[in-house]
């Protein structure tokens, strides 16, 4: 929403747009714009180009490649990247483990991991959720028992996104089974090639494969791969999860979906029912964008990591609107989207498929996850209720 931006901020957004649309290969961006997924190689290519220009980890400390940007500039960077259909820097690396190591890790850990993390030389996975520790994350059971200069890790993580590509995994593990739930947890870095680590795919309802179970069977982890202090892991995890108040809104994703619906809908745009639904979705999306800008405008006056119920508003509303947009594309495709296909290719003589026929319904099914992950929407409602009712 340009009206709400200063001239300088508009110029900054323009500069970002210029970078993303000229430096990131058009082939990658066009494929993503058609609803296809980035491959591992495309993620790596994109992040390394950004890193070479100092644009992969702008929110890190300056000495490790960060930029002295305002929260609004970081938002514009992310938004322009999304609008240009650029594969983003791997969130596990740049938004999660990187800032934790940079803030709480030893100098030795920083030197060992941060440059490779920024450049995606290491692909990190996130080992937080467990079969019996979802919304109630602090009830996690994976144990790490000290044995000389090693921890011995046993247990299971789940919903581990893209662990099939993972080189390393950062895990919350229980180091003190006697302590109260949150207090006995530590933050451990584990080489996924270690003996005893097993990754098993979980197949999702969309037919895709993006999440895994990760099993740890007597995995020996050197103690110097502990981040910060033993039993302080919960604090680091909360820091990690509260790092970006506005990133879960996904305004760029929603705008891309709306833009694509408008490109693909053709004469359906004149259908009053469809247009009314689309218009209301657009209005709510711009309202969400303004909410993001309002949060960013006062971000400077809030201490970092301080909980703010508005972050929950952004996640709750953003995920719903992302889902609504995915559903509208399904409605635009109608019967043309019903066949489950791996690609848009059809045999000779058959009519070409409309764009979206391959991905509309899978994306709709897949995106039901958005109101479940990153704190389910029910958890977000609970956070808001707690803040306003003060109980």
């Amino acid at each position, binding site marked *: 929403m340009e009206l709400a931006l200063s001239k300088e901020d508009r110029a900054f957004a323009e500069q970002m747009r210029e970078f993303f649309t000229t430096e990131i290969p058009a082939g990658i961006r066009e494929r993503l714009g058609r609803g296809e997924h980035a491959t591992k190689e495309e993620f790596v290519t994109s992040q390394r180009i950004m890193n070479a220009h100092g644009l992969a980890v702008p929110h890190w400390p300056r000495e490790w490649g960060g930029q002295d940007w305002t929260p609004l500039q970081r938002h514009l960077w992310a938004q322009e990247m999304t609008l240009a259909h650029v594969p983003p820097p791997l969130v596990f690396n740049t938004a999660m483990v990187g800032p934790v190591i940079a803030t709480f890790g030893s100098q030795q850990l920083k030197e060992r991991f941060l440059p490779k993390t920024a450049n995606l030389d290491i692909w990190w996975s996130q080992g937080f959720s467990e079969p019996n520790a979802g919304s109630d994350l602090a009830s996690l059971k994976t144990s790490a028992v000290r044995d000389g200069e090693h921890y011995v890790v046993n247990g299971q993580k789940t919903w581990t996104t893209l662990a099939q590509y993972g080189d390393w995994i950062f895990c919350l593990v229980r180091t003190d089974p006697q302590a109260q739930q949150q207090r006995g947890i530590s933050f451990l870095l584990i080489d996924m090639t270690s003996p005893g680590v097993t990754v098993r795919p979980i197949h999702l309802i969309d037919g895709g494969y993006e999440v895994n179970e990760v099993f740890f069977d007597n995995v020996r982890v050197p103690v110097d791969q502990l981040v910060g202090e033993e039993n302080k892991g919960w604090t680091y995890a909360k820091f990690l999860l509260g790092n970006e108040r506005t990133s879960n809104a996904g305004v760029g994703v929603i705008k891309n979906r709306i833009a694509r619906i408008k*490109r693909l809908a053709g004469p359906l745009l004149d259908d009053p029912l469809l247009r009314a639904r689309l*218009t209301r979705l657009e209005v709510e999306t*711009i*309202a969400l964008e303004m909410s993001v800008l309002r949060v960013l*405008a006062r971000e400077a006056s809030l201490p970092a990591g301080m909980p703010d119920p*508005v972050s929950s508003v952004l996640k709750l509303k953003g995920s719903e609107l992302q889902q609504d947009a995915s559903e509208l594309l399904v409605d635009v495709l109608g019967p043309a989207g019903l066949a489950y296909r791996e690609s848009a290719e059809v045999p000779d003589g058959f009519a070409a498929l409309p764009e979206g026929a391959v991905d509309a319904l899978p994306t709709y099914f897949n995106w039901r996850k958005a109101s479940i992950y990153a704190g389910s929407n029910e958890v977000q409602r*609970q956070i808001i*209720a707690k803040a306003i*009712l003060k109980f």
Partner: protein
Amino acid sequence: MDLELSDEQKLLADTVNGLLEKRYDPNARLALVQSPDGWSRDLWRQYAELGLLGLTFDEQYGGAGMGVDELAVVMECFGRALVLEPYLATVVLGGALVAAAGSPEQKSAVLPGVAAGETLLAFGYIEPGSRWSLQDIACSATPAGDGWTVSGEKIAVVGGNCADQVIVTARTPDGQLGLFLVEATAEGVRRDAYAMQDGQRGADILFSGAPAVELGGADNALETVRSVLDVAIAALCAEAVGAMDRMLWLTVDYLKTRVQFGQPIAVFQALQHRAADMYVSLEQARSMALLARLALRADDAAERRTLVRAAKLQIDMSARHVGQEAVQLHGGIGMTMEYPVGHYLKRATVIGKTVADADRLTELVGAAGGLVPPG
């Protein structure tokens, strides 16, 4: 980004809130609703003393020369207190029309009296069959001597019951839309005055050859009306946000104090989550009320109008949700005339049917191509 209030704007809000907190407790308000005038002339004088009645007029006409941001600050305070005085009618609509379309002589004749609290205005632009159309009107204006006469009926004229002068839209013999100023006590003016559903007062007004003067030389009266309504929409958005904010906090307080099954009902998750959803709706509305103000700075009239309409659409959707839930979460007490929350629902509902409603706004924003370009 100037997305937050300036110190001067905060001071204005504090001043207005301070006055209203003293004068607008629910009982005092209910007594006003039931009084013959339906609002307080004493408070009106105090608004004049604070400079609120000429807030956006030029200083040479007795105004304070402020902008829509300050107007929105005042309207949000008014929404929170559920103010009954005819501010929208007199200042936001009537005064703004005179300021936008009047000749220098007309402005000098009307605006200082408005700013001083001596003159009340109203704007009649809706007719029995016109629904949301500004142009589908039957009211006619006929040249007569130096001036004009106006004939036809205007309905749902907020503040029309007490206005000294009424501004009306009417078709001139060449088929153009014109803006005319009519003395409310003139011969040929009959008013059917009533309380509106939200307790504010209004009237249907029948003009039968009533003497009128044309406002300015208005070559483009339609565009003038639309521009004034753009500002009025931004003002209504702010008022609705004030009302919604109050409804949310009334509800929160109620959930924390109402005891059933031996505990405050705030402990029930079914209610907690609904209160959280009200908060989400309010935040979305607040964001769009802000956008409406920013949009008024846009140079391009079409862009400005689409954004302002989009803002009201969000506000209307949010206000419907927040209003209905506020009453529901209060239970029976929310249904009573005695308790304030239902009055907020009524005001929010009337705002939802003022200038344009959610369906009409959806149609207009959609027809303008929406807010996100195809890509």
